[in-house]
């Protein structure tokens, strides 16, 4: 009984020092659906070793927000000079899909940068495909939807976070873009 009381005392003491913030839900975020922002450049003649996987993202700082007649100024809202996202590229190695990124990195982070002159956010990637084989490309899954991804603002500290929910073209029902390099 004495030991039990000591345990209870210890538990109460520990809990007394814990600051539990019941307000963890991040309120200052906006989620905007804006489809088809990610374009995969599919070469007409297919890929050969030495070619690049090319895909790009390009959108205005003013994007239509469902439910509103006025477009949303994502730059004024977030103050972000870039939006971040993640993508995967794998090659089939004897039946096992393995990442092609250096250091066996599972994914890479892309930065969609703000261009003040055109008031747009832009990203262009040309990843070298040095080895022949079967490849697959996908973006980081949006929560609950494997066909979509999030472009997340790197907003200023006292600004509202903007998360743009979008998708890439040419992806299959599992969110992958499969292609072969000859």
């Amino acid at each position, binding site marked *: 009984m004495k030991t039990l009381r000591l345990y209870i005392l210890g538990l*109460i003491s520990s809990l007394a020092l814990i600051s539990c913030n019941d307000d963890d839900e991040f309120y*200052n975020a906006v989620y905007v659906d804006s489809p088809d922002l990610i374009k995969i450049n599919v070469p007409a003649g297919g890929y050969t070793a030495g070619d690049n996987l090319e895909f790009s993202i390009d959108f205005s700082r003013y994007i239509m927000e469902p439910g509103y007649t006025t477009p949303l100024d994502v730059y004024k809202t977030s103050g972000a000079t870039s939006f971040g996202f993640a993508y995967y590229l794998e090659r089939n190695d004897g039946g096992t899909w393995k990442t092609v990124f250096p250091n066996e990195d599972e994914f890479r982070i892309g930065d969609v940068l703000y261009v003040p002159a055109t008031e747009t956010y832009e990203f262009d990637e040309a990843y070298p495909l040095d080895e022949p084989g079967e490849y697959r490309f996908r973006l980081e899954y949006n929560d609950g939807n494997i066909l979509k991804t999030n472009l997340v603002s790197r907003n200023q500290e006292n600004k509202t976070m903007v998360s743009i929910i979008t998708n890439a073209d040419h992806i299959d029902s599992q969110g992958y873009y499969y292609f072969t390099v000859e």
Partner: protein
Amino acid sequence: MKKLALVAVFFFQFAHAQQQDSTEVVSPISLKKNEVRLDVVSLITKMRIHASYERFLNKDFSVGLSASISESNKEKKDFDENFDRTLPQYEVIPYLRYSLSKSQVSYYYVEAFASANGGKYKTKERFVEGGNGYYQAVENTYFDVALGGAVGYKLYFKDKFAVDLFVGMGKNLFNTDKSPEIVQRVGASFGYRF
């Protein structure tokens, strides 16, 4: 049957006499009806001034009143930078305690409390300027009342110095779209009984 009844009566008398003869030890503490406390741990770790007064009604029940003001720079910074939606600033807590132990020098207790609490909160609002919309966090003040419970442990030294540890929580009732949903009741106080 008559003999059995007499035996039962004598047994009861004997037991009752034993109870009367075993003198109940009254702690000097029980003669001191008032106590003041300060939550030192909250003051040091969270810059929160939390003071309490407790009145002991009898050996089982006590009532009290706590008040706190928060001056935490970290909480204020998190609120200013929009990481936290609310910034609790003050709280007044009347409470009722019931001792779970016979000892008056060290005992566990349960507590029921009400909390009148207030502070600042932020909401995300959409504005339109030049034909385009944008979002911004807007600051306001809130006030709410919570009901809740806690459990705790009290220990006395030299029949006057108290250590009081308690943990519990309450739920705001009226303005939960503005105030925090949960009010924590956590403390590690040192006090003086008189």
